[in-house]
Each structure stands twice: as structure tokens, then as C-alpha cells.
């Protein structure tokens, strides 16, 4: 029987090392307490009904010792755990973008070239993959045990996360957050391929319309271009080169234009007003599907080719909680 799942991502080795360290600590202290309890219980067992205990004086020193030692050990765990966490939450800049839509009870995964997959995702080995995820209904969670990777997909926001596969193979994709009746059927497979196989896979089949061009169509359909155009004196700010750039707001704050910002500016346009523009944009809350929002985001990202490729990093910290980003 196996005790560890496959190690198929750059996280897996780090997480498992941490796991083994915690197992060692757990085993040591469980055995220590277990052995002491058993030894004391046998050695000091009551031999006659009226036997009394021996006097043991309390020891302040002993109390300090067994407070400080656990403290030191848990601090080691904390810093080690935090360093692994930072690795998992900071996507590198050269990642392939995958757009994920979760809904009861399926995963829809889209490549930037327009290729769509259902409950399956093909990725190359040795290349970071950046996921921009949205949910159409309840909270889901994208979980690949072999990657030691999990991220909740919360409706009403984009969840951005990443992984890099290291070993070709076929691995479970699970929904880890309970999402209703067929929760345990919301599963799929991640196919990790060698670069050559991946190229072959990409070449086969018709990719369809790219996400960015689908987004461009929606941009016109929703009449976004009437204000966010390139003409002089446009009523809204230009979106060229926006993604990954710092934006100055009317209240004097500065935010980096990441996926979360773009999404919020579409559905709740008054939340963060750009300096120098009047608050005239209507809200699109409920008017554009999650998929549409992903397409629009992909389109707006494509207007900043340099940023989308290289400056993705600052935008890559996990989408901050909406509560905490409000002024």
C-alpha cells in the first residue's frame, strides 16, 4: 500500500518533506507520552487498597521547559510551512494561461487558443500553468492530490493559482469543496505530457476561436468600446497596456490592474473609480456570464502583451478578499 500520492509537481516534494517532519514530531511526542503513561501506570500501580502516593513537588522549571520546547518546535513548523505556502501562492511570470469555469457538477477548462476541455486538462511537463478560475454557482475547489495543490473557486470573484507539473502521467482532479448532490462526480483527470506529446496534442483537432477574440466580440456587443475606445476625449480610460499596470484611483489609492481588479471594474464599476473619469459606467452585475467575464478579461489582458507575459507576477498574489480591498 502507498502512503504518499504520486509526486507530480514542483510543490509535491516540499509539501511531503514538511509532512514527514511533522510525522516525525507527532510520532516522537505520541510515543513519549504513551510510553510514560504506560510505564508510570505499571510502575506505580496500586498494590494495596490503602496505599498512598508519594509526594512530588511541583516544578516551575519543568513547566517552563515543557512550554518552551513545544513553542520552539511549532515556530519551526510555522516558518517552514509559511515558506512552502509562499512558493505555492506566487506564480512565476512565464506561465501558460488556463481559464477554468466551475459549475454544478463539471469543470470547463479553456486554453488561450480557444481549445476547450470538459473535466480533462492537458498540460506540458516542466512549464508553469496559471489558472484563472470562476464559478457559475456555488463554491468549488480545484484539487489535484498528485500536485499537493488545491484552491477554492469562489463565485463572484476570480481565483488565480498555479502549478508546474514534473512527471508525465494521468492524475486525479477532484472538487474538494462540498457543492451539492453530485459533488463526488465533479471529478476529472489532469494529463501531464512531455513537451513533444503536448505539441502533438495541440496540433491535433481544431482549436476554435481564441478566448481573446471571443472577448473582443463581447467587448463590442456590450458596447464597452463606445467609452473605452482609442478616440480622443473618450469617456472612459483606455484599456491598452492596462493589465499589470498601477492605476491611480480617485481616492488617491493605487491598485495594480490584475484579474480581480478587471472583474470588479466590470461588475461593480463604482468600487474603484479611476482618477480623472466621472462615475458614469453602469454596473454589469448579473448581465455577463462567468465565461463572458473570463473572455473579456482574456481580451483586456491581450491588449497588454508585454504585461500579460512578464508582469503577471505582481498581479499574481491571490485575489485579495473583497472586504479588505475596499477603502
Amino acid at each position, binding site marked *: *500500500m502507498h*502512503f*504518499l*500520492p504520486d509526486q507530480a509537481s514542483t510543490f509535491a516534494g*516540499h*509539501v511531503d518533506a*514538511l*509532512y514527514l517532519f*511533522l510525522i516525525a*514530531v*507527532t510520532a516522537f511526542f*505520541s510515543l513519549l*507520552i504513551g510510553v*510514560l503513561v504506560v510505564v*508510570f501506570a505499571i510502575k*506505580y500501580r*496500586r498494590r494495596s487498597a490503602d*496505599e*498512598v502516593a508519594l509526594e*512530588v513537588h*511541583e516544578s516551575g522549571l*519543568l*513547566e517552563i521547559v*515543557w*512550554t518552551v520546547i*513545544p513553542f520552539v518546535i*511549532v515556530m519551526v*513548523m*510555522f516558518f517552514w*510551512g509559511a515558506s*512552502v*505556502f509562499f512558493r*505555492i501562492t506566487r506564480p512565476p511570470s512565464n506561465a501558460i494561461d488556463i481559464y477554468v469555469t466551475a459549475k454544478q457538477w463539471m469543470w470547463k477548462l479553456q486554453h488561450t487558443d480557444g481549445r476547450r476541455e470538459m473535466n480533462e486538462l492537458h498540460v506540458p511537463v516542466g512549464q508553469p500553468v496559471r489558472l484563472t478560475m470562476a464559478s457559475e*454557482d*456555488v*463554491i468549488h*475547489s480545484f484539487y489535484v492530490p*498528485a500536485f499537493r*495543490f488545491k*484552491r477554492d473557486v*469562489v*463565485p*463572484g*470573484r476570480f481565483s488565480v493559482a498555479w502549478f508546474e507539473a514534473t512527471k508525465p502521467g494521468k492524475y486525479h482532479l*477532484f*472538487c474538494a*469543496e*462540498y*457543492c451539492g*448532490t453530485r459533488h*463526488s*462526480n465533479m471529478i476529472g483527470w489532469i494529463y501531464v505530457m512531455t513537451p513533444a506529446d503536448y505539441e502533438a496534442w495541440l496540433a491535433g483537432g481544431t482549436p476554435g476561436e481564441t478566448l481573446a477574440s471571443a472577448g473582443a466580440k463581447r467587448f463590442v456587443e456590450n458596447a464597452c468600446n463606445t467609452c473605452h475606445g482609442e478616440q480622443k476625449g473618450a469617456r472612459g480610460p483606455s484599456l491598452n497596456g492596462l493589465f499589470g499596470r498601477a492605476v491611480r484611483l480617485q481616492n488617491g489609492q493605487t491598485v495594480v490592474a490584475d484579474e480581480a481588479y478587471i472583474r470588479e471594474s466590470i461588475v*461593480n464599476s463604482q468600487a474603484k473609480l479611476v482618477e480623472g473619469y466621472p462615475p458614469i459606467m453602469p454596473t454589469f*452585475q*448579473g448581465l455577463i456570464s462567468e465565461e463572458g467575464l473570463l473572455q473579456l478579461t482574456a481580451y483586456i489582458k491581450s491588449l497588454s502583451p508585454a504585461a500579460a507575459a512578464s508582469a503577471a507576477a505582481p498581479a499574481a*498574489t491571490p*485575489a*485579495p*478578499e473583497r*472586504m479588505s480591498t475596499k477603502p
Partner: protein
Amino acid sequence: MTNENAPHAPRVGARANYLNASYGVRSWLLTSDHKRIAVMYLIGVTVFFAIGGLAAALIRLELLTPAGDVFQAETYNKIFTTHGIMMVFFFMIPGIPAVLGNFLVPLMIGAKDLAFPRINLLSWYLYIIGGLTALWAVVHGGLDTGWTFYTPYSTVYSNGWVVVTAVGIFIAGFSSILTGLNFLVTIHTMRAPGMHWTRMPLFCWGMYAASIIQILGTPVVAITILLVGAERLFHLGIFDPAQGGDPVLFQHLFWFYSHPAVYIMILPAMAVISELVTAFSRKPIFGYKFIAGSSIAIAVLSFLVWGHHMFVSGQSVYAGLVFSVLSFLVAIPSAIKVFNWTATLYKGSVSYQTPLLYALGFIGLFTFGGLTGLFLACLGLDIHVHDTYFIVAHFHYIMVGGTIMAYLGGLHYWWPKISGKMYPEYWSRVSAWVIFIGFNLTFFPQFIVGYLGMPRRYHAYPEEFQVLNVMSTAGASILGIGYLIPLVYFIWSMRYGQDAADNPWGATGLEWETPSPPPTENFPETPVVTGIAYDYLTGKEEAAVG
């Protein structure tokens, strides 16, 4: 100890006690005697435990095979929801405080009753009404949200009886608040002369700490659950992202109570263990002040760790760091307790009677359960094990291996006082062993299957997880039998058991100064306390009555 207090001493004639003081259903349903109310709670929590346990048995039955072949998916989801709601809200939270705490707090501090006897009875009614309301929902089709009610599933998508169940939990919450209030006021104002804070039994310290959480935390979950109901009925849009609400806000509010609630379950259990370890070692507890202080430290820190339930929810990295470090810190007072219990056995006069067997089982299982909690406080590791069977195993080690072992240990220890009868020692030792073995076989494999990646709340699962699930189901069968044995002999003992001596264990503590079972007024005259708690060595009584 005098001869009169020797174990199993026969008693002449039946003295007036709280059980025979009056007869008839009315005399129970309208009682304000904390001891009778405790017995009524005992019946209540046993019924809800049985329902929750039956649901657990059905869960394990379904998980025997990988395919979802015993129940429909929706039925399975309703079953695990029923299991969680019954066990958490109607067994674990009231369990030790409302049964043992109700019976013992006044006895231990030398009081005639709790500060507000009629409010105590009201608490019981609220508990029963809340429980029956939730049960009504279960019987009429149930609900499938899980006991955690995560939004927007619970507010928009679920078809179950969410609002009815929420009302049931809301009502029962007031029972918990009022019990906590009653204990706090009683401990502050009704201690017998000479019962200084530092002479108070550690059981009362644990109840005190748990009561603080009950009073401060429960209103938050009451409001939260009310918001869920209101959002479902009136579409307020607080948690619904389609209306600009925030589903993660619900998680913050819910865990702000529900993580401290874990300590409402475990602090009283620790309090029981402190009593058992010292009584069966015949030795003062090692580190009294550290154990008492650690209870308060746990109660305070418990309110600052809720965010560790949300490491993968998109909470900010910095919030994650803060919640991680605080979660690690809350482990330290627990470790202090374990070390002090172990040190109490050292050079003791250790007698392996049933309550001690349960207590030693508790120490082992709680230690292991507590250490595996560190895995979940650890940011990088929690990302993998969050929402898998690893966490299911962890919290069952704390709640079942910890709280239920302590509850049963306490019940065996104080049963002679509660019922005036002895249970069969042989069978009670058997039950302690069967439960310990069955428990480990049930839940240890779940750590492994969890790390291998099996998510919780899965109706069907991939075949490679089957071996470990079969082990778990086998263990659950043994565990189930282990729980039935005490149920049988406790009931048996009420009719056929030997009469219990006033102090069958030769223990200190004011509760053992009273007859078994105690008279309605507990103490004919207010006792005066002249020494420390657990004064086994000087040979004199801790307190002189009169």
C-alpha cells in the same frame, strides 16, 4: 477514609435523595433541581447521540464500496449532514457541560443549586425544542448542506429544510448561552466559604473557561444562522455573489463561533480528565495553576484562530500567516495539560478502574489528535490536506477520541453519585478497550486515505481508496458495539446494580462528601473548605462538613 466510605459498603435503608424525593413525570418536567435537570439532559444527549451514531453507521456502510450503491447521492449527503448537526449541536456542545457540569458544579463548590435554577430548566426546554425542530427537518426530508451551511449553496441552491434546521440550532444556541451564564454566575457567587479560586476543582475551571466561549461565541453563530435563514427567505444578498454579497463573509462569521465551539467540546473533556487522573493516582494534580491557567488561555486564543479554515478560500496571504501562527500557539496550552497529567501519574498510587482506563485512552488519543492538528495549522501542508479525510480523522480524534472518551470516563466516575448504583466493573473495562480499539481502527486509516487525496463528503470514490475505507468501516462496527455495552449496563445497573458507597473511589472533592445519590438540597449545612483541592497526601479531608 473511614470505613463507611469503603467501596461497596452496604447501606442500611434508603435515605431521602434527589431521585426519590418526589415521583411522577410532573416532578421531573417542572423540577428546578440541577441534578434532575442533568439527568434529563443525559437522556436528551443520549437520544441525539444515538441518532447521530446511526447516521454515522449508514455513512460507513455506503463507503464500504467505491461506487455510490447503497444510497442515492442526495440521500447520502443528507445522512452526513444529519450526522454532523446531531453530533455537533445536540450532543458534543451540550454533552459534558449540560450533563456532568449541571450535576457537579454546585456539588463541587458546595452550593445547593445553580444560581438560576429555573433558567436552568428553561435551558433544557430550549435544548429539547431546538433538537426536536432539527429532528422534524430530518424526518420530513432532511437537508444536504453539511453541518457547515456554506453559502451560497445553503442560501440559494440547496433544496433541503435549511431554515427549519437553522431555527432549531438558533433555539438550542440560547440553551447553551443560558447554561454558560448560569455556570459563570454560580462559580463567581456561590462558592462555599473557604473555596478560593485556587482551591476550586479543575473541573470547575474547565467549565468556567467553556462557559466564557459559550456566552461570547454563541450569539455570533446565532446571528449568522439567522442571516442564512433570512437570506434564503428574503434574498437579502449578504452572502450571494449574484447580488454583490460575499460567500466568504459567511465562513468568517461561521468559524468565528465554530472554531471556539471545538473548545466548548474539549475544555470540559480536559476538565474531566484532570479529575480522573488525580483521583485514580491518589495524588494532588501536578501543576494545578498551569492546568487552570491553560484552560483560560485556550478560551482566549480560541477566538483568534478561525481563519485557519480558510487558507485555500482566497483569504489574503497575510491573514493566512497570522491565523497560522495563532493556531500553532493554541497548541501550547494543550501540550501543557498533557504533560501535567502524565506527571501526575508519576509516583502515584495508580488504580486501573474503568474511569482511569477511559482517561488514559483520552490522553493517548487527544495527544495524537492534537499533534495532527498542527498539520492543519501549517500553511503549506494544509493546502493539500484541507477538505480531505485527513481533517475528518483529525477532528474525530479530538471529538470522539477526546471528548467522548472523557464524557464516558466521567460518566463512569460519577455514575455511583448520579444513580446511587454500581455498574459491573468487568464489562465496563471491556467497553473501554473495545471503544479504544474500534476507534483507532475507524479513524487511523482516514489519515492515510486523506493524505492520499480522498476528499471528504464524497458519496463515491476511486477504487484505490477502498482498502482503507473497508478498515474504517470494520473499525466503526467495533466502535458501535463499544458504545452499546455501556448503554446496556448503565440501564441494567439502575435496577440490578449494587448500591454505591458515598465515596466508592476514595476521592477528594465535596461531591464525594454527600450521600450517593445526594439529597435534593445537596448539603444539609453549607460546607467550609479548609484546604487545597486534591489533598490526598496529608490524609485529612479537603473540607469538613459543618
